[in-house]
């Protein structure tokens, strides 16, 4: 079932209609975390949200996950309003958040067990553990795994539920550069095989260009989507992109320009 390509399936469409989210501050005021967002993410699309902190990326992800409700507007999954969390929208945090009292096997099997479909889908647990390259670690406990391995286990745990949409909140943020690049390829491979809609929050411009079909550039105060960039670079057979191609670098400088990070020359204090 895992290996069966599902690219081109028609589910996993996310639509945001006029979505705003306000948070109450401790001093009684309100912070607008997201302002009148209107967008559509197509089934099987890979979208990255990028922007400085406070621009509402994670807020948007949590709204899609159903972990918080929009103050105004509506979020639709396949034209049905999102109403609380559900297994069809998987979530992976920056912190692997594996349950420390369960073995890796039981962590991955968790979603199937609580949905009472473990018996029928038992073999998929093994398959997904293999897919993320953790065979042989089934009986280990989370604290025995390295950061990268733990993150792959948490990816497998989300994938075993066959979510229509996979929400990734800086999943690679805590990893070193090399593990990170390997994991990017792994995520792409899984995406290619499963055809799941991917929405990923990242701080890394290169990561966003390398992975996504479209990059949503978000800006804070007021938190909104500043620009959506369609990444039009061909993918290689592993589905990644050539990181040092001219196109790649052009996209990079374009995004940095929009984010206003191209070259703020700050005069060091000792020159003044």
């Amino acid at each position, binding site marked *: 079932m895992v290996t069966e390509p599902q690219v081109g399936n028609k589910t996993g469409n996310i639509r945001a209609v006029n979505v705003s989210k306000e948070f109450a501050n401790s001093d009684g005021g309100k912070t607008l975390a997201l302002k009148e967002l209107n967008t559509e993410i197509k089934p099987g699309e890979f979208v990255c949200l990028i922007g400085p902190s406070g621009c509402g990326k994670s807020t948007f992800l949590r709204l899609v996950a*159903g972990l918080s409700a929009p103050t105004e507007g509506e979020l639709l999954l396949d034209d049905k309003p999102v109403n609380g969390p559900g297994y069809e929208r998987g979530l992976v945090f920056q912190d692997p958040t594996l349950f420390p009292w*369960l073995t890796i096997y039981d962590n991955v099997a968790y979603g199937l067990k609580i949905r009472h479909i473990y018996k029928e889908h038992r073999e998929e647990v093994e398959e997904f553990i293999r897919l993320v390259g953790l065979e042989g670690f089934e009986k280990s406990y989370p604290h025995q795994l390295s950061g990268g391995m733990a993150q792959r286990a948490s990816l497998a745990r989300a994938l075993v539920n066959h979510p229509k949409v996979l929400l990734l909140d800086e999943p690679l943020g805590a990893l070193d550069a090399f593990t990170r690049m390997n994991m990017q390829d792994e995520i792409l491979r899984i995406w290619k095989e499963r055809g799941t809609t991917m929405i990923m929050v990242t701080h890394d411009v290169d990561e966003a260009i390398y992975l996504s079909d479209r990059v949503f550039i978000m800006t804070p105060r007021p938190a909104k989507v500043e620009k959506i960039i369609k990444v039009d670079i061909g993918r290689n057979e592993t589905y990644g992109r050539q990181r040092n191609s001219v196109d790649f670098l052009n996209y990079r400088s374009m995004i940095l320009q929009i984010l206003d990070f191209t070259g703020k020359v700050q005069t060091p204090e000792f020159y003044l």
Partner: protein
Amino acid sequence: MSEEFQGKKKSKIAFNYRTLIPSAGLLIALLTEVLIPNHKDTKYSDLTNLRTVLITALSISVLLCLLSIFIKRLRKRYSYQGWFIGGSGIFIAVINIVTAKTHMLPQLYFPSLSRVFNVYIEDRSFLLTCVISSFTLLIEGLIIGTIIGVITGIVVGWSKGWSYWIYPIIRILGPIPSSTWIPLALIIFSAPKGAAIFLIAFGVWFQITILTSSGIQATKKSYFEVSSTLGASSLQNLFYIAIPDALPSIFLGFFNATCSSFVALMAAEMMGVKSGLGWYINWQKEMIAYPNVYAGLIIIAGFCYLFITLQFKVRDKLLKWQKGVIKW
């Protein structure tokens, strides 16, 4: 680590000098007993119980020393414990000297060790009924207190509404020492046994409730969030996330509760229950039969030690996942 590594390379037969220390210590204790004559005023000077105990212990220690030449695991453990067992032998020798041998401590309150051991022979059937009586009281109190404590703890830790009503009551009632409830317990429960169980269960209930509820409240929010996005209902979050996460805390509560339940047991046995170790010790003290008091104390100490050790074993088994996360 390197020692272990070398041990694997070498043949299995090896000798560690530390495995001789227990025998040496016990031998010193035995020699003190045999070679130094008792003080002329020592009562029951002809009792040889201490000798019997020491000879038995010495034989076992020699046997273990020989066995540990061949069994690697035993060698490792026995040599580690060597100094402690040897030291205990010296301790017995010192006790023997200050009591039976020299009467440096008054004989009335500090009888010879042989007399203490003699109690186990003369009073054995009676002591056995006391042990059984205390044990059933303790177990019943612990089980009832634990069950009610875990349930209250979960309810208070999980639900804000229940917490609003129950938590202040716990805060008010909990810190009151068990023994202060004796008058009330005797009115409510007609049988003193029921009152005794209530006293023990009450102390256990408080400890376990507090640590269960705080364990559940301390569960990371992100665990619930991940669990929810994997399809868990609120009730599943409670049983599969909150309770397993709180388990170390619940165990800590149980550990504290066991310790306080021994105190409660002693208090409970002093009110009308005509058997049990606490009652035995108190009764013998009033009769100024100090050998019996010490005999009772030693049983209680052994009893507590076994109980706590057993609990640690169960915990290590159940909370295997915690190793490496938290140092116990």
